């Protein structure tokens, strides 16, 4: 089976600092790969490289067997192939947009038919209900939500894109146990269908062990 994402010998330097050195990994469809390790070993850098947000200095990243960096910019097999979820949920949602707009933004990707405003609100409410988040009003803005709520909205937005790969950077940082469990449930449910894979970074080994099929320790 072709790996959803494969990295071969990737490394990244920021000036004199080597953030990540010579790492190789592959993630199969439906698989959740946990990444852990102490601060500063390049966990977040690895995720940004896997997500195609940054170009590795050495090595290659491939999506579904195709090189990600063939030309000048990153090339995804399709829009929304990789969806990132970041540590800070309030920054990863546009503070000026109501939740419905952020949630359904992946649906406006080029090449897809663009649903209208009323349709998008409706779809957002449906997705929220499916994730048992129907207590969140689609018309609120991120500022009116808690960090945990924002994070689940951010995970949900990643799912709306129907991604082949979800990369999540410390998605449960600053969350209590119950909220963290709800967040990991969302990720697990998305991969259970076998359509999506996930790479999840966390320094919480116990939480990661309950979610991931395999854990890489960068230490």
């Amino acid at each position, binding site marked *: 089976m072709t790996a959803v994402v494969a990295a071969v010998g990737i490394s990244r330097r920021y000036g004199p600092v080597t953030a990540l050195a010579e790492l190789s990994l592959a993630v199969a469809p439906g698989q959740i790969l946990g990444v852990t390790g102490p601060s500063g070993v390049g966990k977040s850098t690895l995720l940004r490289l896997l*997500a*195609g*947000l940054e170009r590795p200095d050495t090595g290659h990243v491939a999506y579904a067997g195709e090189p990600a960096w063939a030309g000048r910019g990153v090339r*995804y097999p*399709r*829009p*929304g192939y*990789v*969806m*990132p979820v*970041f540590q*800070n949920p309030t*920054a*990863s*949602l*546009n*503070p*000026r947009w109501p939740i419905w707009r*952020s949630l359904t*933004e*992946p649906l406006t*990707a*080029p*090449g897809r038919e663009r649903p209208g405003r009323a349709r998008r609100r409706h779809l957002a409410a449906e997705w929220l209900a499916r994730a048992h988040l129907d207590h969140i009003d689609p018309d609120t*803005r991120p*500022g*009116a939500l808690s960090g945990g709520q924002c994070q689940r909205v*951010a995970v949900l*937005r*990643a799912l709306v*894109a129907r991604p082949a790969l979800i990369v999540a950077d410390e998605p449960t940082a600053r969350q209590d146990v119950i909220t963290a469990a709800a967040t990991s449930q969302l990720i697990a449910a998305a991969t259970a269908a076998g359509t999506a894979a996930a790479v999840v970074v966390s320094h919480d080994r116990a939480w990661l062990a309950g979610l991931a099929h395999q854990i890489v320790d960068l230490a």
Partner: protein
Amino acid sequence: MGRRLLSPARAGLRRLGQAAATLLAGSVLVWALLALAPGDPARRVLEAGNVTNPTAAQVEAKRAELGLTGGPARRYGRWLAGAARGDLGVSWVTGRPVRDELGRRLPATLRLAAAAVGLGAVAALALALLAAAAPGRWPDTAARVLSTGALVVPGFVVGLVVLHVVVLRGADLRVIADGRWATVLLPAATLALAPAAAWSRVLRADLLRAAGSGHVDVARARGASTWWALTRHQLPHALVQFLTVVGTGVAALLGGAPVVETVYTWPGIGAYAVAGIASRDLPVVQGYALLAIAAYVAVSLSVDLAAAALDPRVAERRR
């Protein structure tokens, strides 16, 4: 959150109070111009009215008429009350009310300022978007060189060069500047050059700061183009700040207007104020300064209110 947020109504009232205080402080300074200036205003006004050797009685009468009797506080009070009614005194040169002289020239200056702000804002927007779309690459570098150049060359030099080129090349003796819309382009572009350069730098920085947010990364991952991320995610964030900077820049435009108007012989209040300075026509200078202060306070007040209204996060708190 350590500081309690003011309610929008109270914040608005406080801002209004600040504007009034600024206006009042400015009026004291402008009034002091006249109070501290050497010479006797009553005598100057009489001379302007062709009374070359006024008698002591005539001077006394004029002084009473101009409200120049009593202590400084009373004189300031009378002057302020007059200014509030639009009475800015009479020109020492022509003997005509300053209000009429300024009023006659105001439309030309408003045309020039409006054209300059519009031109400058559009140019700054275009330059900043171009630069922020490709940070570190050649469009960014070109925008930086262009704006630095525009910032360091003074407006009157640009104006003189432009005039020279236009007059030399277009020997058809067409009117270059007469205060109408048809001729506003060259002086407005000259006036807008430096502010637009500064605005574009600020906007570029804010656009790139907004690009560092997670939601921009997410948008790009799901296939958004650079342009889409710029216009939908980054620009709305940077726009509030841009609006404030442009609003504050109107002050720079007001400051540059006298020079540009004089170079182009644009028949506005700026050129009139320069003429007033040259002929030591203090009421004219006072009137211009007061008008400029009032315009600046009014613009910055409306910019602040507009910025608050534009920010949905403020609206959120209100709900």
